[in-house]
């Protein structure tokens, strides 16, 4: 850590970080013994299996369900597909189509040796990795040629529910200066145990995360990026019951940023904790491999809990998300750890506390592209005051050197943004970012003052909480409601039936290759 303006004790930072490392490590032992239906469907998607059957069930679901119903998911879909390739001479997609047509039961075929199945599938795996790498190279080429906006990147959302309308809004936002477009997902997708297929034209509060929607928006943003001379990043959600599947789709369609949090689904969508923790592992390996920036969701704690009192839970969770990311081989430069400007505006000196916490996050995670979220909880419909709240938020962001700035909208709490709302918010941020660009370099803080002491306090509390969690274990900490004030039982929530213990011959060919950074 460089010299701390907040006079943070590096020993406490190290203590908190190593405690989080042990917390994640303990959960990793559990993760390594298990797989899930969504993890297995992800392997199929990466092997090129796509499309739906005649009742709109995605083919990856059709296959995994067949294997699961036969009680042999513990062996892993990679084995069953490799085996089927040997026995039928078909490619994975052809096998999937035959299964969907009711012409093939892949678990009833004669069983080849595990080694042979793995060998058979490796060329398909390598081919898939090559395609993903081509997308990563394409991004690098864009960044090298047309370049990108300055940090904090201006991050805006589109949420019309119609992907084609979203394109119009996204392109307008890019022309106005946006650097990242997040396509908001329709409510309720997080609890679907499959990924819908095809373009969305009628969603509520957003569109489905589908491969086709990703493709449509990617193309639109590449076009507008070339027009405005700036690479425009695309963001969507690798979260919910299909977390790793959506990460795979994101890798294939070149998304740049994905919402992905080890704990969010458990706390805020009541997804079973075992399921999510196993799912997040593979999703993060994919994200790490293809240089996507992940965004964790700590900001959400502050919408359910109090932003002043619960600040240390945000920091503790950032440490945990960081350590899970380390286990999935994600570079620090891809760790978009989340936090938010959510204190009650009536708090005296609230701005000082927010500033303190934002700088604290910056100092503790120096290379991470921190995602800073705007005020939402105390936005009232008074759009004029809201615009000022957003201005204070923007000032802290440029001052503390945040990286991904989700722009606050003056009409937050009223409606999903109109075109002019987005324009006004981009104008607000651009003005403040430019006007106060190097403020952070110029200002130091009074020793023992409000700002220093606030950060020191939050760090000490986070360290204490992490050591409690380490002692209790992550599962039981969540059961007790220590994050976001939300309690979730270990065997409760949705999707537990999709978790399965691996057998001794299980293999997922993508994990070692992606972790090894195969070129």
């Amino acid at each position, binding site marked *: 850590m460089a010299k701390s303006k907040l006079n943070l004790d590096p020993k406490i930072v190290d203590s908190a970080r190593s405690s989080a490392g042990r917390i994640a490590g303990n959960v990793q032992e559990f993760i390594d013994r298990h797989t899930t239906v969504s993890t297995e469907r992800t392997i199929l998607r990466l092997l090129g299996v796509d499309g739906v059957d005649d009742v709109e069930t995605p083919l990856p679901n059709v296959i995994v369900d067949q294997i699961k119903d036969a009680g042999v998911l513990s062996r892993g879909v990679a084995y069953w597909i490799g085996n089927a390739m040997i026995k039928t001479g078909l490619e994975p997609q052809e096998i999937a189509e035959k299964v969907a047509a009711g012409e093939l039961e892949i678990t009833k075929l004669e069983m080849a040796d595990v080694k042979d199945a793995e060998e058979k599938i490796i060329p398909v795996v390598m081919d898939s990795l090559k395609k993903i790498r081509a997308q990563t190279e394409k991004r690098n080429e864009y960044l090298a040629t047309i370049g990108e906006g300055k940090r904090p990147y201006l991050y805006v959302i589109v949420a019309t529910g119609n992907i084609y309308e979203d394109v*119009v809004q996204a392109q307008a936002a890019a022309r*106005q200066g946006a650097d990242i477009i997040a396509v908001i997902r329709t*409510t309720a997708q997080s*609890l679907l145990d499959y990924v819908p297929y095809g373009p969305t034209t009628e969603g509520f*509060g957003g569109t489905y995360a589908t491969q086709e929607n990703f493709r449509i928006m990617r193309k639109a943003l590449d076009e507008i990026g070339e027009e405005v001379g700036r690479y425009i990043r695309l963001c969507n959600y690798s979260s919910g019951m299909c977390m790793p599947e959506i990460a795979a789709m994101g890798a294939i369609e070149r998304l740049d940023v994905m919402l992905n949090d080890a704990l969010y689904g458990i706390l805020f969508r009541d997804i079973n904790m075992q399921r999510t923790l196993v799912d997040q592992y593979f999703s993060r390996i994919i994200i790490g491999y293809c240089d996507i920036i992940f965004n964790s969701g700590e900001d959400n704690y502050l919408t359910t809990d109090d932003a002043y009192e619960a600040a240390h839970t945000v920091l503790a969770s950032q440490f945990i998300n960081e350590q899970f990311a380390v286990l999935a081989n994600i570079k620090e430069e891809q760790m978009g750890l989340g936090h938010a400007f959510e204190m009650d505006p009536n708090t005296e000196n609230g701005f000082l506390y927010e500033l303190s916490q934002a700088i604290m996050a910056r100092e503790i995670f120096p290379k991470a592209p921190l995602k800073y979220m705007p005020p939402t909880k105390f936005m009232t419909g008074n759009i004029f005051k809201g615009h000022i709240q957003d201005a204070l938020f923007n000032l802290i962001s440029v001052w503390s050197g945040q990286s991904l700035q989700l722009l606050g909208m003056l009409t937050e709490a009223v409606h999903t943004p109109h075109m002019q709302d987005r324009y006004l918010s981009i104008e607000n941020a651009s003005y403040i970012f430019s006007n106060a660009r190097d403020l952070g370099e110029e200002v130091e803080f009074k020793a023992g003052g409000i700002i220093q002491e606030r950060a020191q306090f939050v760090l000490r509390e986070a360290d204490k909480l992490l050591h409690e969690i380490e002692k209790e274990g992550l599962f039981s900490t969540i059961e007790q409601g220590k994050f976001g004030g939300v309690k979730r039982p270990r065997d409760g929530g949705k999707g537990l039936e999709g978790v399965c213990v691996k057998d001794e011959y299980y293999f997922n060919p993508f994990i070692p290759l992606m972790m090894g950074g195969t070129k």
Partner: protein
Amino acid sequence: MNATTQVDLTQVKPYGDTMNDGMMELAFTLPVPYGEEASEAAKVLVRQMGLDEPSVVYSKDMGGGFTFFVIYGKCQHTVDYTSIKVTKVDVDVMERLECAEYIKENIKRPVILLGASTGTDAHTVGIDAIMNMKGFHGHYGLERYEGIEAINMGSQVPNEVMIAKAIEVNADAILISQTVTQKDIHIQNLTNMVELLEAEGLRDKIILVCGGPRISHEIAQELGYDAGFGSHSYAEHVASFVLTEIVKRGMINRKSL
């Protein structure tokens, strides 16, 4: 005193800085390219809205053939304030401790309130503000009310599941929060809840309340709810209504659902 500073409540106009100047500000976007024609088009539109002397104080090219405007104009319409009627939740609001006292004196048993954000709505901010211990803006939530057992089922709860839970816990009231209102999805969902309760024969046996930033008491009543709470409603408003209603409807010694 000058007569023009007196408001005539039968003919009210917007007030800028002089009585009856009718001043209004508007901000909107037209899907036409930036330029003098765009500004003229905006003025014509605003005049048709009944605003005289429209003045485009700001316009901005938003790219892609869209122009943003800020416009002032003088409203020519008036409104008769004396004839306005609004349906409101008609109850004397009691503070948290008064609610506890009210339960002790009048109801003499625990009051069970079941809340959730239902349907596809994933937002818990509204139901949490009303129910969670901490509440919102210094107004404690129902969980902190003595004599009230508040059960918050969270978000995306199907109406059927909520009704089953209401029967299980013998709820006095169901509190539904709706935040997402795009394409009126909340109306469909709220209506569905009433239909299901009616089909189960439970509608009269339970107090049904909804809330959310786009909810008004009037809409709630139209949809068949007992009350609706919009922005700036807190736990004490909901609690006061429900407790009073329990007494009013003779639900104190009611049978199990």
